[in-house]
C-alpha cells in the first residue's frame, strides 16, 4: 500500500530557506503564516474573521493577505488583501472563484498598520549590472510589499525609492512620494519619510551579517539579479520572501537544509 506523503509547496520551501539562514525560527514562521488545506478554506475564513474582530475590539488596524498556494509555483500566487470585516464576503467569492483550480493550500498572514505603530514594507533588488553591484530599495508605509508593483503618481501609500552601490555605502534617495489624500493627522512629511527610511535602513544594516550570508549563497548561482522582501513593524525587521530568476535551482541546492514544517 502506498502511504501518502504530504506535499510541501515550493513556496513554503522558499520560506524555510529563510529559517535555514536564521532570519526567523521555524516556530515564528509557523505562527506568522497560517496554513490551511484548500478544502478547509472555511476554517481560514472563520479564523480570519475572528482576528478581524479582535483587531476591532482592541482598536488595532491590520491588513491580512490571503494566498492560494499550488504545489509547484514559487511565486506570483493569487492573493487577496483584506482589512475590514465587510470584505469577508469578497474573500469568500475570491476563494470560490479559484475553487476548481489546482491549489493545495490557502494561507494568510497579518501586518499591523495602525498609525501609532511604525510599519513599513519593502523590497531590495540586488543587481550585478555592468557598472557594478547595486542595491535598489523600494519601501512603502503601512501596506503590503506586493503593492510596490503598481507604484504610480497617485499611489495611495507613502513611498521611497533609493539605491546604493553595495553594503556599507550610503543610500541615495531617488524618489519620495506622498499620497495626495493622506489624512492630515497621520500625514508624513517628505522629511519625515526620508528620516524613517534612514531608520529602516539602519534596522536592515543590523542584520547585515545574515543578509550577506544569504546573498553570498544566492551569488553562488551567478544570477544577475535577485531580491529580498522585508517588513519592519515596531522596530522588528522580518525578511519575508525572496525571488531569483530560478528559485527551483536554489531550492534544489545541497547547501540548504530545509525543515519540512509538517508535524
Amino acid at each position, binding site marked *: 500500500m502506498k502511504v501518502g506523503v504530504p506535499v510541501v509547496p515550493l513556496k513554503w520551501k522558499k520560506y524555510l530557506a529563510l529559517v535555514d539562514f536564521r532570519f526567523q525560527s521555524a516556530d515564528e514562521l509557523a505562527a506568522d503564516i497560517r496554513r490551511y488545506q484548500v478544502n478547509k478554506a472555511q476554517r481560514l475564513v472563520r479564523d480570519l474573521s475572528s482576528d478581524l474582530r479582535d483587531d476591532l475590539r482592541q482598536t488595532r488596524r491590520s491588513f491580512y493577505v490571503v494566498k492560494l498556494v499550488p504545489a509547484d509555483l514559487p*511565486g*506570483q500566487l493569487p492573493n487577496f488583501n483584506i482589512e475590514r470585516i465587510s470584505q469577508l464576503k469578497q474573500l469568500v467569492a475570491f476563494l470560490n472563484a479559484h475553487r476548481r483550480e489546482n491549489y493545495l493550500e490557502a494561507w494568510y498572514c497579518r501586518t499591523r498598520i495602525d498609525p501609532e505603530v511604525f510599519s513599513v514594507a519593502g523590497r531590495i533588488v540586488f543587481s550585478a549590472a555592468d557598472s557594478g553591484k547595486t542595491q*535598489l530599495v523600494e519601501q512603502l508605509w503601512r501596506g503590503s510589499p506586493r503593492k510596490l*508593483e503598481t507604484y504610480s503618481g*497617485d499611489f495611495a501609500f507613502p513611498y521611497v525609492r533609493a539605491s546604493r552601490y553595495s553594503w556599507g555605502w550610503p543610500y541615495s534617495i531617488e524618489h519620495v512620494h506622498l499620497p495626495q489624500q493622506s489624512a492630515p493627522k497621520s500625514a508624513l512629511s517628505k522629511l519625515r519619510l526620508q528620516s524613517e527610511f534612514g531608520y529602516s535602513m539602519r534596522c536592515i544594516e543590523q542584520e547585515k551579517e545574515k543578509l550577506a550570508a544569504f546573498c553570498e549563497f544566492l551569488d553562488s548561482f551567478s*544570477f544577475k*539579479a535577485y531580491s529580498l522582501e522585508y517588513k519592519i513593524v515596531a522596530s522588528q525587521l522580518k525578511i519575508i520572501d525572496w525571488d531569483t*530568476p530560478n528559485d527551483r535551482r536554489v531550492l534544489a541546492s545541497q547547501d540548504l537544509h530545509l525543515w519540512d514544517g509538517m508535524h
Partner: protein
Amino acid sequence: MLAEIDAVHQRVWQAVSHYWEPNSVHGHGPDHAMRVYSMGLQLAAALGADPLVVGAGCYIHDAGMRPDVGREGHIERSLQIASALCEEMPELAGVRDLLLTTIRYHEAELAFPSPLPTEAVCVRDSDTLDRLGFTGIRMTLQYGVWMGRALCHPSDPLCCERAPDLSAFTMDYVRYLESLPQRLLTSLARSYSEEKQKQREFYCSEFLSSFRQGRMRNHEDALRLVMAHMREESRVA
C-alpha cells in the same frame, strides 16, 4: 495634435521609465521600450491606428518585468501599471480598455480574440520585431546570462537535431526565434522581419564557425559577437 500626443507619451514614459531601467540586467531595459515605441508608431501610421494608444502601449507593455523575477507574471503587472496610469491621466482614461488590450495580447505566442484591434496588432508586431535579428539575439543572450542558463548544447549548439530546450540552452532559444516571423500579423511587419531573419542567419553561421574554433566559450563571447555586428550595422545605417 501630434504634439499633444507626443506630450502624453512623454508623461507616460516619465511615469514608467523607473520600471524599465533595472530590467537592463536581463536585456529588457529602456532601449527595448524605445525601439518598440519607434516601430509601433511607424506601424500605427501605416495602418491607421490611434498613435496615442499604440505609443502608450509600447511604453508600458513590458514595464511589469522585474529584475529579480524577469518575465514571470509581467503581463499582469504591466496591466496593473497601465490601469493605475489611466486613473491619473485623463487623456488615457477614455482609451483605457483599448490600451489594456494592447498590453494583454502583446506577446507573439499568446492566443488572442478575433478581431484584435489594430492598435493591439501594432504593439504586438512591434514587440515581436524587436525580438528578431540582432536586437532579439542580444536580449535573448542577456536573459540567458541573467537566469544562469547554459549557452548551448555541447555537441549540437544550434539545435539542428534536437527538440529545442528553451529553459536549458540560450542558443536553442535563438533558434526558436526563427519561428516568430510567421506569428507576425501584418504584411508590413513581415517585410521588416526579412532583414531581421538575415541577421539571425548571419549570426548563427558566425556563431557556429567561432564555436568550432573553440572561440565561443560562454555568453560573454556570444554577446561580443552580436554587439560587434550591431556596431557594424549602425555604421552602415
